[in-house]
């Protein structure tokens, strides 16, 4: 009897858990939909902006903006790492932290510092005593334009004031709800956006190329950070949805198995009782 009661309790507890994971799956699905449409609808602008920059960088004799300038000697590197604030999102944080660790392995501790978005990355790397320049917690999938500007300005300022000599962004690119890809990109200097070899387009510039760069580059930088955040938010929700849906499925299986065991136990208990009664009756007759 003891075992039977134990199993009944387990079934109830698994059922409760299943209800929670199901609810979380639904919430994640709703958020994913929003985040996905946001990231997909803002991609065209980002691509066009990048193309524009590429075309511009091909122009000969451009007096280059300091953001383009590659530092001859790299003394300090900065990694802008985007993780999530909440857990229960499958391998999302594990994947990106693993990637970050293998990136950090190439540097000595005083040669690199981190800016982390999201609690998970911050907690992990603080415990390991990596230098954390700045942290952004509690974004929860929303980012105000003023916050975005302050993030970007911080990165640009660190780069221009020569406190850091390169900036990398590590984020999770959203491909579809079940697939995402951890992506490492060099953010500053912007040299990588320069395309050599291709023929220069003879543009007319109005007012002049320097002024265009002055307006374009801050916009480009903000957009790049914004896109990385949007991609990560969408990936996080996608990953959480998948994780929760498989958790729900697992709970379902577990309940089935437990129910089967329960029924078997119940059956055998009944049989045992019947036997006892029958043998008792036999004894009385005797």
């Amino acid at each position: 009897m003891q075992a039977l009661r134990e199993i009944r309790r387990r079934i109830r507890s698994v059922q409760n858990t299943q209800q929670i994971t199901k609810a979380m799956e639904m919430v994640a699905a709703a958020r994913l939909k929003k985040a996905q449409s946001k990231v997909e609808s803002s991609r065209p602008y980002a691509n066009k902006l990048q193309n524009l920059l590429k075309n511009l960088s091909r122009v000969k004799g451009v007096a280059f903006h300091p953001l383009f300038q590659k530092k001859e000697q790299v003394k300090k590197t900065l990694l802008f790492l985007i993780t999530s604030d909440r857990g229960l999102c499958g391998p999302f944080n594990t994947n990106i932290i693993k990637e970050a660790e293998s990136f950090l392995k190439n540097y000595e501790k005083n040669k690199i510092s981190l800016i982390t978005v999201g609690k998970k990355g911050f907690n992990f790397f603080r415990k390991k005593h990596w230098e954390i320049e700045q942290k952004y917690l509690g974004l929860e999938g929303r980012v105000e334009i003023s916050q975005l500007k302050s993030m970007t300005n911080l990165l640009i300022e660190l780069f221009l004031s020569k406190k850091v000599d390169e900036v990398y962004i590590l984020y999770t690119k959203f491909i579809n709800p079940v697939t995402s890809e951890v992506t490492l990109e060099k953010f500053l200097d912007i040299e990588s956006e320069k395309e050599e070899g291709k023929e220069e387009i003879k543009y007319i510039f109005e007012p002049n190329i320097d002024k265009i760069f002055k307006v374009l580059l801050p916009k480009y930088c903000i957009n790049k950070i914004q896109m990385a955040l949007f991609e990560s938010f969408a990936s996080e929700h996608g990953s959480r949805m998948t994780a929760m849906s498989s958790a729900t499925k697992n709970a379902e299986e577990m309940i089935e198995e437990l129910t089967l065991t329960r029924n078997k136990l119940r059956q055998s208990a009944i049989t045992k009782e019947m036997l006892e009664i029958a043998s008792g009756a036999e004894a009385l007759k005797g």
Partner: protein
Amino acid sequence: MFKLSIVTPEKIFKELEVNSIIAPGSEGYLGVLTNHAPLITTLVPGKLTAKDKNNQEKNYAISGGFLEVYKNQVTILADSIESLENIDIERAQKALDRAKKRLKSKDPGIDIPRASAAVRRALNRIKIYDSYIKRM
């Protein structure tokens, strides 16, 4: 005829075939016709006019961005843009009041270039909206 695509940070705003456009360049309004030479310019708040193949005019309030002309393909990267009919006049008026108040206050923390840019954007919307009302 050439192709005009207008994108904003949020979405692809419009893609259409046009005969000509007039855009508010930073050095003054400029017109683009078919087979225009490659051009890149910054845009300031102003009115964007596009004429389709029947010379039907469509007007938009644009609040800055970039314009690129390359091989009969015009791309406008707009900070924000609304068609004439969709201007939210109340919101523009409120934004104007807010920005003016900020400029008047003696608080040293005020970002003056940003506030005056907000004034320009709001005034642009109001001006374009008024011209639209008058025409009706």
